[in-house]
């Protein structure tokens, strides 16, 4: 077959930069989550304000065992301490996530990715359109063929929430727990109500990110796991869904 006989390639469903950054962020998020849980179990108590320790009243306590015998948990045993490597990996994964995120943002803004693919159109945001889409999701309706090529409005809104609210917030509250960064930008901490508040918000934002991850994977599963994951890896949809 000569070049002139090759069929015209259809455009990729996802640009290469979106696919690469998607999986880099996925890997670093999973590393951050695992190591975050390890760090958390060394003190599964949460506080509000500037200070908090086993001598002060917690805002709430997680009903789990701890990796420190100084924390009263009600369990008769202490889990092994995994904080050393967990901390090294947490901060390295954080760098990968932040640098990858910046690359993605630069691409998203400069190439119109956010405008074309993520910002919903005003008509999509009308109450009837939103209600229809919510109802369809609640009935676990199968996505239309169009949606293989374009995100629906709920999808757009949840991606925007993750990209522009949850990730910035989890990074901010993470930085606010660094004693050195605190000295450089005190407003990062005082703006949140204190160091322990930052830690507590960090925890809740993580819960929301995990919820997003679970729903995201469920939706991908309902839409056709192989097709959608394939499109996010190689960029192309199977022949049957391709627009000719």
């Amino acid at each position, binding site marked *: 077959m000569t070049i002139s006989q*090759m069929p015209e390639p259809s455009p990729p469903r996802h640009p290469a930069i979106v696919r690469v950054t998607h999986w880099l962020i996925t890997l670093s998020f999973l590393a951050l989550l695992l190591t975050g849980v390890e760090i958390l179990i060394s003190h599964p108590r949460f506080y509000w304000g500037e200070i908090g320790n086993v001598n002060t009243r917690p805002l709430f306590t997680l009903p789990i065992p701890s990796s420190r015998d*100084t924390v009263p948990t009600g369990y008769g045993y202490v889990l092994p301490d995994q904080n050393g490597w967990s901390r090294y990996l947490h901060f390295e994964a954080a760098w990968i996530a932040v640098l990858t995120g910046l690359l993605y943002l630069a691409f998203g803004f400069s190439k119109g990715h956010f405008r074309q693919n993520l910002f919903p159109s005003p008509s999509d945001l009308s109450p009837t359109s939103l209600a229809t889409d919510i109802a369809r999701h609640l009935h676990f309706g199968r996505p239309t063929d169009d949606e293989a090529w374009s995100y629906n409005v709920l999808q757009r809104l949840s991606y925007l929430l993750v990209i522009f609210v949850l990730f910035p917030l989890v990074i901010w509250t993470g930085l606010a*727990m*660094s*004693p*050195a960064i605190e000295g450089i930008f005190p407003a990062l901490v005082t703006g949140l109500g204190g160091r322990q508040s930052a830690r507590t918000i960090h925890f809740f934002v993580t819960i929301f990110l995990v919820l997003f991850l679970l729903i995201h994977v469920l939706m991908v599963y309902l839409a056709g796991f192989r097709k959608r994951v394939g499109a996010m890896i190689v960029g192309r949809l199977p022949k049957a869904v391709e627009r000719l």
Partner: protein
Amino acid sequence: MNKISRRKLITAGLVGGAGAAGLAVAANIAKRFGLIPPDAGVLYGPGETLTYAAQRLLSRHSMAREFPRTEISKDPFANEVDPLGAEFKRLQDGAFVDWRLAVDGMVARPAAFSLAELKSFPHSTQITFIACEEGWSYVAEWSGVPLAHLLNLVGVLPQARYVVYRSIQPDWWESIDMADALHPQTLLTLGMNGGELPVPFGGPLRLRVPRQLGYKNVKYITSLTVIDSLKRFGKGLGSSAPEGGYAWYAGI
């Protein structure tokens, strides 16, 4: 292979090459300016170097946050301390009169200071928090001699880059770079909340490094060594923390 994929391949190759060259240049610059932490290994070295270098570039003159008196924790948590041993007991029985802080290494005038001598030096007081890597924290008023004052007394030689400090507990030794050692809030702490520094909190002598986590704030300090390289100490990772799996730099 069609034109587009060849062009893509060349572009990807160029980008990859430029990236690798950029990394090599960045690593060289970091090394030249002493921005690679001593525990930087293959796996976590890049992340640790990014953190340490970024914070050093930003934080050389920044101050740890100070609090009003009303924020001082009423019931601070001292954390557990391993058994202190016979030598500590002997010194404690003698009201720490024989406690000495030895200073050696790259200094013009090596010396050993008693607590009484330390108390006669100009004092500094700060209300700052101490935060454990586990997540908990408290605020206290700490008073003592700025480490910078002592280092000026003994005369640090120009090639010095780190200060190693050791606890009377043989498993505990740490080190900080000169930026932290000469920082005005880095304090040889003798007092807490208006009284003597209690033994559970590190008394009679603790080094406060408020811009780093609790484990860099070693209790029961007996000696300091000023040095240009950490290679010859322990396993060469900078302190006992990385030997136990924890990062040397704890400014996070």
